[in-house]
């Protein structure tokens, strides 16, 4: 058979990146002549490129915003949303932190809301240490940030601003593992890989784990992860092949990365098939 050729350009979320990267890697073993590039620029950054036609697929850890969809429409770009799996945004503290084992959504809101008055741990609960709380979170371009602020603070993108913000989740991991009084949040995969140097905090009494995430128990911070596809691109055989490959293997690879897969990807695959024709 004729070997498949072409280019698939992907960019976007750092949360979804590990999954897509794994797919790209596996795919390239099967189809060495198809050139798959995966960039990381956060969900927002990804959409920015996607909406002007620079990329074929866009990773996202939140749904596309209306304002973003409008830009896509202006540029004549039609797209389809696919769910890849589920993540649970994990609130983490330093392992030496022996007081904060669980937090309520209200407490999280108290900590993270705009103009929050929480400066020390004792501002959260009086019995906790009177030590300055050192906060870490994803940057404003990140879907994780958007989702977290939406669910916790009630408005996407609204947050206190005096925390260390980074698109690079390892910066957050490093920061939290280096300071006893730190607290931060990021995708579950980063916690799973660094569980030695981090301690996950239960939210409303539930600890994040693939099981609690898949079972929809870890609320409200469990969230779907997406890949957005440009419809016209899916018509290209290499993009179609890549997407098919993606969802045929998602069941296996998504958990490897540390996320929860969908129970079945048949529907998703059918949608790809439909778009391609």
């Amino acid at each position, binding site marked *: 058979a004729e070997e498949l050729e072409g280019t698939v*350009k992907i960019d976007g979320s*750092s949360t979804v*990146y*590990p999954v897509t*990267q*794994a797919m*790209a*890697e596996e795919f*390239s073993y099967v189809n*060495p002549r198809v*050139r*798959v*590039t*995966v*960039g*990381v*620029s956060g969900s927002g950054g990804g959409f920015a490129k996607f909406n002007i036609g*620079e990329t074929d697929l866009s990773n996202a850890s939140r749904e596309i915003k209306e304002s973003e969809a409008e830009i896509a429409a202006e540029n004549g770009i039609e797209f389809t949303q696919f769910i890849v799996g589920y993540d649970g945004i994990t609130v983490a503290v330093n392992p030496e932190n022996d007081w904060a084992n669980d937090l309520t959504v209200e407490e999280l809101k108290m900590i993270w809301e705009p103009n929050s008055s929480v400066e020390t741990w004792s501002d959260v609960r009086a019995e906790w240490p009177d030590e300055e709380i050192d906060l870490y979170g994803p940057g404003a371009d990140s879907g994780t940030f958007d989702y977290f602020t939406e669910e916790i603070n009630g408005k996407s993108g609204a947050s206190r601003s005096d925390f260390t913000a980074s698109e*690079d*989740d*390892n*910066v957050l*991991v490093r920061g939290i593992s280096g300071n006893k009084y730190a607290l931060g949040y990021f995708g579950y*995969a*980063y916690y*799973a*890989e*660094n569980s030695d140097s981090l301690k996950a905090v239960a939210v409303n009494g539930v600890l994040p784990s693939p099981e609690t995430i898949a079972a929809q128990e870890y609320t409200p911070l469990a969230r779907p992860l997406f890949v957005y596809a440009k419809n016209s691109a899916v018509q290209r055989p290499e993009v179609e092949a890549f997407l098919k490959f993606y969802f045929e293997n998602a069941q296996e690879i998504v958990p490897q*990365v*540390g996320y929860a897969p969908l129970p079945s990807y048949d529907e998703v695959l059918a949608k790809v098939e439909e778009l391609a024709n």
Partner: protein
Amino acid sequence: MADLKKKRMRTDKIFKYVFLVFISLGLIVLAALIYDIVSKGTIMLDWEFFTRFDSRFPEKAGIKAGLYGTIYVIGLMIPITFFVGTATAIYLEEYAPKNKLTDLIKLNIANLAGIPSIIYGMLGLGVFVRYLNMGRSVLAGALTLSLLVLPVVIVSAQEALKGVPDSLRNASYALGANHWHTVYKVVLPSALPSIITGLILAVSRAIGETAPLIMMGALTFVMFTPQGIMDSFTVMPIQIFNWTSLPKVEYELVAASGSLLLLILLFILNGLATFIRYKYSRK
């Protein structure tokens, strides 16, 4: 009087040791840096590291894409900077009149050498990627890096040309050579070793440049080597930077292997520059 003498001698001694400590400090840091990189970098390093693409498994991750990307970008950058840098230096040293305009151009080049590299990244993004529509290609990356190192190359080429004794120029003119002949056949060959040394040092800086390429958007996972200058690419420092931001801790070791490789490349280039310098500095 004798006291004073003693004091002078003592000051002399003290400063000798102070300076010695200073220079040792630099060397110790270098040693620590190399130790750090080598001890971490050799753990996962094997031959396949060079021949494999990146992977989601740290033990399978390789630097092939970055290595090729770096070679492509630098390979394209070298002729550009060599040509433009040398030609500019020749113009400034051998052709330009001594007037305000020339002074201004020289001042401008000196200033460019002090402009932060990230600003060149913004220039590359604005001009090459967006305006000239080259996309995030090898060509755009090479051009951006060329502009970045050009001032350094020009200045060192200027120094090299200044170092060519006038007696050689006079000898050529006295034989009835015209200006260009003199420059091309006499001045340039004499200055070439120094020009190349300067170029190599500039290249070794460009190899490690990360910020302007990130600015341009070259931060990408690729599973292929560039096939042409319009292809997308990644470079070694970006791969290193990327690895350090991945969830698995073992990637820190992979990153160290990458750093080690970069360091070795640097050693080779600097060795080459030193070799050329000493080989041709003997008169």
